[in-house]
């Protein structure tokens, strides 16, 4: 997918728009549908689209593994921290009235902070999961482990036309040729 200029350009244009939409959903949660959880998922889908189109290494370069794990913890710390802060200010745990001078403003601030914490956690979890799943092949290669059923050689000579039902349209004879070449080159 990396070699297709159209998709690269459109992804470059779309990714900031998706992130902006995620932030809109995040901070719009008080007045309409949306909130931390949905915003986190949309934020993660921007990174996933980037990783799919520009390749895993570029994707991993954008959000490194270590920072990704730290962000998961950071979200939960932000949430718990707001609770502890309201403890210090005299209220009980997670009671936002005391967070600022008048209760309503305190509630708004508290809800804003914890929604941001939830969004951060969910976004980094989804991105981490995607890289953990999609990067498995590279990881196994580095660990030099045979994958669960490494019978690569046997199925080399009978490549299927496509995953869908085996309806052999007349154009598909050429597909088998192309698929075989593709499978061998990709090996």
């Amino acid at each position, binding site marked *: 997918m990396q070699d297709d200029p159209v998709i690269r350009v459109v992804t470059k244009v779309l990714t900031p728009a998706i992130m902006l939409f995620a932030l809109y959903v995040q901070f719009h*949660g*008080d007045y*309409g*549908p*949306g*909130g931390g*959880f*949905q915003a986190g*998922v*949309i934020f*993660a*889908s921007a990174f*996933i689209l980037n990783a799919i189109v520009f390749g895993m290494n570029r994707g991993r370069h954008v959000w490194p*593994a*270590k920072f*990704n*794990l730290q962000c*998961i*913890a950071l*979200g*939960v710390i932000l*949430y*718990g921290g707001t*609770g502890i802060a309201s403890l210090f200010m005299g209220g009980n*745990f*997670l009671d936002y009235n005391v967070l600022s001078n008048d*209760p*309503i403003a305190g*509630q*708004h601030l*508290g*809800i804003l902070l*914890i*929604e941001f*914490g*939830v969004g951060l*956690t*969910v976004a980094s*979890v*989804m991105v*981490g*999961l*995607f*890289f*953990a*799943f*999609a*990067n*498995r*092949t590279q*990881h196994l*290669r*580095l*660990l*030099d*482990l045979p*994958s*669960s*059923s490494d019978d690569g050689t046997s199925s080399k000579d009978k490549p299927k036309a496509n*995953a869908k039902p085996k309806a052999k349209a007349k154009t598909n004879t050429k597909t088998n040729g192309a698929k075989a070449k593709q499978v061998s080159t990709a090996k």
Partner: protein
Amino acid sequence: MEFWINAALAIILTVIGIMAVSQHRLFAVIILSGAYSLVAATWFVVLDAVDVAFTEAAVGAGVSTVLALGTLSMVPGKEKKRPVEALPLSLAIATGMLLLLAVADMPQFGSPDTPVQQHVGPHYITQSEKEIGVPNIVTSVLSSYRGFDTFGETAVIFTAAIAVFLILTGWTRKKIITKPKSKTKSPELDV
């Protein structure tokens, strides 16, 4: 008019469910589960549950389809055929019957005089504007009245993610990388 839309969506949902269960090609199952989430999200839209529709569309149709596709390259394309044993099947049918029995005497869908609606609900609906001042009652209940519970949910997401990373990226496996393959620093933490 509303009833017919609900009925049509319910039928479509069950048809997609049956197709997904009877399908053996894992790729088709993933796409059908994406379609299932789309129809469920549309149904929540018709039922006026906007936040749930939002989450269902974002998570069900979007991320879970892509995550499942990400894993599909590691598993064979077809589901292995297993004979249907008698005991689990009968257990499943028995629990199904019990649930149907329980559904029979649940209160009518959305009727106001059930204990659930009477207990704390009215206080939230009437006081939410004064106490918290957030127009969207769902958000005010979710993050302020029920803030401690949502804190628990965030902690659950956190632990689930850490568990997945522990299993998948081999922290538990003894280190096999003797000499780093690629010239770059061998990613001991390759999440």
